[in-house]
């Protein structure tokens, strides 16, 4: 049984018991239904569903577009975080508050809005069309929607690290004759990269499962612009439960592995910050 460490506080059994019961009923048992259902498939059926050309095309698009979106967010997220923490300019607080918009705006709203903006006669589509760029109903559109969805992750993971970074290390580098660029490479970047990679990985993980913001802009053509979550929904609507479950299991295992990797990265980041704080 659990140790209570001589605590005088009440309610341990009640709150822990309720938490575990609620967690089991709402999360663990439903999730395990997915694995039981998959386990009941024969290996041949599982592989046929998971490795069909349509599924492979969907993985390629989902992983490729998510990676592209994460990369764009790594660059612009870092710049945004830098500008918001280091510079003072009018409207800074407003921009800072608006960074969370993709978290707050329902995905379906983001989806129809981005599609309308990027369609041929939309505000942005009209500019892109003469340049020969078609964004709506192409993989490019998928990547744009995923960039929107992932935008806050990099900014919000890098920002606190930039804020906490001791000015002393930078000052020391500067007074020892390092140039600004050198200071960035040698002092700032080594402290920043765990947060930068963590933020990008979080954006990537979110993008893998994203559905609402993408279905409208992708055009949903099998083999070309069909993302994995949509393929799962399509299979489900055709009552192909086995196929939907098999592909969902592949995605779930990918997401969980990614989550574990992110946790390890965050541990590295914490150790790095703690190590710096302890240095004399």
């Amino acid at each position, binding site marked *: 049984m659990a140790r209570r460490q001589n605590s005088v*506080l009440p*309610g*341990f059994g009640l709150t822990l018991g309720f938490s575990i019961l609620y967690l089991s009923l709402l999360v663990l048992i439903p999730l395990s239904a997915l694995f039981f259902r998959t386990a009941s498939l024969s290996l041949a059926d599982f592989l046929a569903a998971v490795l069909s050309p349509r599924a492979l095309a969907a993985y390629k698009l989902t992983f490729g577009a998510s990676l592209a979106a994460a990369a764009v967010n790594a660059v612009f997220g870092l710049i945004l975080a830098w*500008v918001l923490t280091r510079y003072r300019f009018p409207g800074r607080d407003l921009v800072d508050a608006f960074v969370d918009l993709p978290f707050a705006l329902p995905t379906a*709203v983001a989806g129809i809005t981005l599609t309308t903006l990027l369609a041929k006669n939309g505000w942005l589509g009209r500019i892109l069309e003469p340049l020969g760029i078609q964004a709506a109903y192409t993989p490019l559109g998928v990547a744009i929607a995923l960039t929107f969805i992932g935008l806050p992750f990099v900014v919000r993971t890098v920002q606190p690290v930039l804020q906490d970074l001791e000015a002393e290390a*930078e000052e020391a580098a500067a007074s020892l004759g390092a140039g600004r660029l050198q200071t960035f490479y040698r002092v700032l970047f080594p402290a920043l990269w765990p947060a930068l990679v963590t933020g990008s990985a979080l954006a990537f993980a979110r993008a893998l*499962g994203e*559905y*609402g913001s993408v279905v409208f802009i992708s055009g949903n053509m099998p083999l070309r612009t069909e993302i994995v979550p949509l393929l799962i929904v399509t299979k489900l609507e055709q009552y192909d439960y086995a196929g939907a479950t098999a592909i969902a299991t592949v995605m779930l295992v990918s997401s969980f592995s990614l989550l574990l990797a992110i946790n390890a990265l965050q541990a590295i980041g914490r150790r790095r910050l703690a190590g710096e704080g302890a240095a004399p």
Partner: protein
Amino acid sequence: MTIAALEDSQGNAPPSVRAALEDPPLVRAALIVLALGFAALFLLLPLVAVFVEAFSAGLGVYWKAISEPVALQAIKLTLIVASISVPANAVFGVAAAWAIARFEFPGKNLLVTLIDLPFAVSPVISGLIFVLLFGAQGVFGPWLIEHGVKIIFAAPGIVLATMFITFPFVARELIPLMQEQGSEEEEAAISLGASGWQMFRRVTLPNIRLGLLYGVVLLNARAMGEFGAVSVVSGHIRGLTNTIPLHVEILYNEYQSAAAFAAASLLALLALVTLVAKRALEWRIRRETRA
């Protein structure tokens, strides 16, 4: 060594050091333009577009779109879903945070990881698992049909999927907050003879109220705006199992763009209110922890 050692009598650092600490004006300007340009393109433009499109066919169409019976039904269902999933997950969040932040027990880290699990699951899969349990072909499907209980393609399924999606919000705000606050005040209350409930109402709740509210604001925004998970379990029955996001989808797919954006503008408004509330709470929490 700090910069103070190099400062002259006016407290100014030598130009070479300052140059290495500050970005050159040109770099500064370029970075600000890049960052603001990116933010304008990806954040401001979509938000403006929602409202412009919503009113593109005039106020009359807008009003009709948000006051027709199907729209009102979607609003009603959305409010019902939120009014169940928000309190349920808030109570869970407080209970889990109390157990995790106030006591030591084996498996604590595992429990914390498991609580975050729903955030790693695609919304579509979050819907799928409930179809696998309660759908016609699901584990409990035959039993449910026999007893005339409808969960999938009905409101209970929508509530369940939303509860799953929003499960971690309050717990993950409260666990670090309560760990940081420590338990001294609560221990004092108990040793002075307060009952558990008195301690909770007089000490714990006032201490965590801002963090709790913060979690509830985020939880509510997600509960009202969830699309993927709800879409899988709802069956899209017009006037019966549509929430506002699903209503938006149907209108949009029927090429009723202005009406779709009118309904979407309600959700965009919710997003704006959420952002303002979030900011205000962050500000108050920072002020309170400093005091």
